[in-house]
């Protein structure tokens, strides 16, 4: 459903959003989208709309919370911020991700070597 240059897995998108909110503090959907684009240097491009169901999902699970506010250019916008359980989740997810990445690297490296 998302037309991207790099495939974005659901879990990955969750992790990216959580990390973004940790790094930048409370942010609206547009801001999160911009940040992802900026960091990935357009390598990872997602339909920005898909961000919203993901934000809702994270909110339902209690990892982020939202509050209406006003954006820099004076627009009514919903600001998302990391909750305490979101922070915990981020830690767990990061660890998980790193373990996975290390495993993949080892696996792929060995396969290349053989």
């Amino acid at each position, binding site marked *: *459903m*998302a*037309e991207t240059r790099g495939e974005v897995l659901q879990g990955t998108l969750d992790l990216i959003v959580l990390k973004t909110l940790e790094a930048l503090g409370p942010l*609206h*959907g*547009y801001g999160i*989208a911009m940040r992802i684009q900026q960091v990935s240097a357009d390598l990872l491009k997602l*339909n*920005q*709309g*898909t961000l*919203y*169901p993901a934000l*809702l*999902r994270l909110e*339902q*699970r209690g990892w982020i919370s939202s509050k209406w506010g006003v*954006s820099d*250019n004076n*627009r*009514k*916008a*919903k600001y998302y911020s990391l909750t305490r359980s979101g922070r915990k989740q981020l830690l767990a997810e990061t660890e998980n991700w790193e373990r996975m990445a290390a495993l993949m690297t080892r696996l792929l490296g060995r396969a290349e070597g053989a």
Partner: protein
Amino acid sequence: MEWLRILALRLLTIFRWRKLENDLDIELRSHVDALAEENMRRGMNEKEARQAAGREFGGVEQTKELYREQRGLPILETFLEDIRFGTRMLVKNPGFTIVAVLTLALGIGANAAIFSVVDAVLLRPLAYQDADRLVTILHRGYNPVAVANYIDWRDQSSSFEAMGAADYWSANLSGIDSPEHILGLQVTQSLLPLLGVEPLLGRLFVAGEDQKGAEHEVILSYGLWQRRFAGDSKVVGKVITLDGQPYTVLGVMPRTFKFAPFWATRAEMWVPNAFGDRIHSREGNSLRIFARLKRDVALSEARAEIATITARLEQKFPGTNRDVVVTPLKQNVVGQVKAPLLLLLGAVGFVLLIACANVAHMLLARSATRQKEMAVRTALGAPRKRVIRQLLTENLLLAAMGASAGLLLAGWGTPALVALSPASIPRVDTIRIDARVVLFLIAVTALTGVVFGLAPAMHASAVNLTDTLKDGGRGGSDGNRRNRLRSFLVASEFALALILLIGAGLMVRSFFALQSIDPGFNPHGVLSMAVSVAGTQESEPHRRAIFYRQLIERVRTLPAVEAAGGINHLPLAGDLWGWPFAIEGRGKPLPGESPMAVYRIVMPGYFETMRLAVLRGRDIAASDDPSAPGVVLINEKAAREYWPGENPLGKHITFDDDRRASPTWLTVIGIVRDAKQENWAEAPYPEVYLAALQNGGFLGEPESHASYITLVVRTKGNPATLSGSIKNTVWSFDRNLAISEVLTMDDVVAEANAEPRFEMALLGVFAGVALILAAVGIYGVMSYSVERRTQEIGIRISLGASRTDVLRLVVRQGMVLALAGSAAGIVGALLLSRLMTKLLYGVQPTDPLTFTGVAVLLTSVALAANYLPARRATRVDPIVALRCE
């Protein structure tokens, strides 16, 4: 628990839908706006910037759809949407909706009402603790037991936690207001505790209180406590007067407590049973034995044990321990009514099926006109599953509306049912519409919705896109499949209706057969009442004889009284004693095989009052007193049974124990017509009538259940109007005489027939409803078919078909269905009516008259229902028919 919280969160969104939609709109719009602004800053014009923003964002509506799915519960939302849509459809077709809802309401309401009865009477456990472990131990499952046998069974068995016995008892309660004759039971100390019901006030009997000398204690029922003691909370410990004796109130049972549940059901007080010297007696069977099975003992094991014990005792005391049966208590209580209630439940089930069939072809007819809607939906990409779901939701909605209306119907019908139900149906006082009934209703409703809705929904959804969307789709011949289904539905309706009508017809025939039974006496114009002397000065033997005679003489002098007499137990309504006797000059009979007769004691004037003919010999006269030789009259059955080919007149019999050296011989002085005894439909047993004034027991027995006389009075005009003056005549002797059971003999006879009348009435009503529904069904189908075939009929007429031809064409089509259904129904009825055998009297379950009559009735109704649409068909104007469409 996490998923539960999320589920709740998502569920709650339903109630905030509008606000959440608004929020979402704002949030997404501001995002897209921000993107567009950014693009414009990069130098695009507004239009380009917006388009680019749209691309980057990736479709606002799609995003919203994804978001909604994440936010709420898509299944539920679709369901609610379907309901909204369904409601609109039903509101748009009020005629269809009203007829369908009413039809369903009839079916569902009748089911709920009957189920509430079946549930309360048959399904629910009795109101005792672990009632399914309670059993009775009785001769042949219902006859009473002798004291010594009870004691042996109790002491020799090990299958039971406890065993107890109950005996008939009654007493005059005096000392407060007017005296009242109150029915009760004498119970062993073990009996009440084994039921596991705690008293509301006070305590139960404790060990030793059923020994001789300590029996002047009483436990009251809630009803008696309320009625006679105004619910006095300090009643425990008080002394009340029963039969002139002081009794201490030990306790009061709770409101729901009833004992015994199947015999002596009107008992309102319980006293300890002191067996005294009866503990060695294996005669005078009067006890009902109740027992609680041990936890780990199966009914079959208990039966085997009792069989062993009684076989042993039978060897030792021949004739005393035969046919002893252990029966679950519940079977004693509901065994008699099970068959008729299940029959009624089956009947309402049929009514519901017919209602479903009617609604189903209404839906089928409508689905034809909705074909285009379905085609459009399918063309727009709705999967068939989704269309069926939409239609089923509509049907469930219809069923739910029908159920609500049906519940109203049941709420009104159930109390009416209870009010009409005969006293012989146990536990009617517990019938109500409660959660269980509503649950049943919901299950029936859901089932109904699917049953009548699935087939039409499958049909409606299976549309051929191109054919339907092409304009000529309508008016052509109707799909074959749909026709077949509709024909099947109509035919089954007729089959079901026919079965119901035959059931009802058989009940009607049986009822009239019962009505035409001659009771042997003439009940019209006779009033009866029990006058009890217990606890009064008239109780003394010599005074009692004088009192009974003077009472009857004084009643005879009342204006409008034609005749008066008295008897110990009134036929059909009163108690019934079977008594063994011996015939002079015959050898000693084998144990347990003595001649037996129903034992009546009468005052002079009884036969005249009841118009019970003395066929040979003479009536009992006033001169048959203690100074004259003992006399007895016998009924025809006794004459045939015990003196076949002989003249019984002048023969001698005795009821005295053969141990006595010189028994009192009674001379047979007359033969009386056979009269009804206990059950209306039962053939009479041998019966004897002894002279009251010669009967020491009748005149001397102090116990209140034996110290009363049932006065019978034949009056001119309505007997009920005389009850006041007769009561006053009684009380002119003594204010303390208790009067009870004031009944006209017509009422007694009506009560004896109440159960078959009730069953007949209900079955008749259900069959009537079924007939109407079936007629409406075939009428609807034929009207629809005529409407669809207007064009064809127009062509036929323009080609020269006469009115008669058209009439015949349409009627034949309908009649083929009706007759095919009826034929199937007759086969079904032949199979099913056999189940009614036990409920029928004087008519075979395959009674040809009923079968023919019902078939003719149903055919005429079908003809009439066919004729109307057929006549309409003959009025088709060929020009109009060919031009339209």
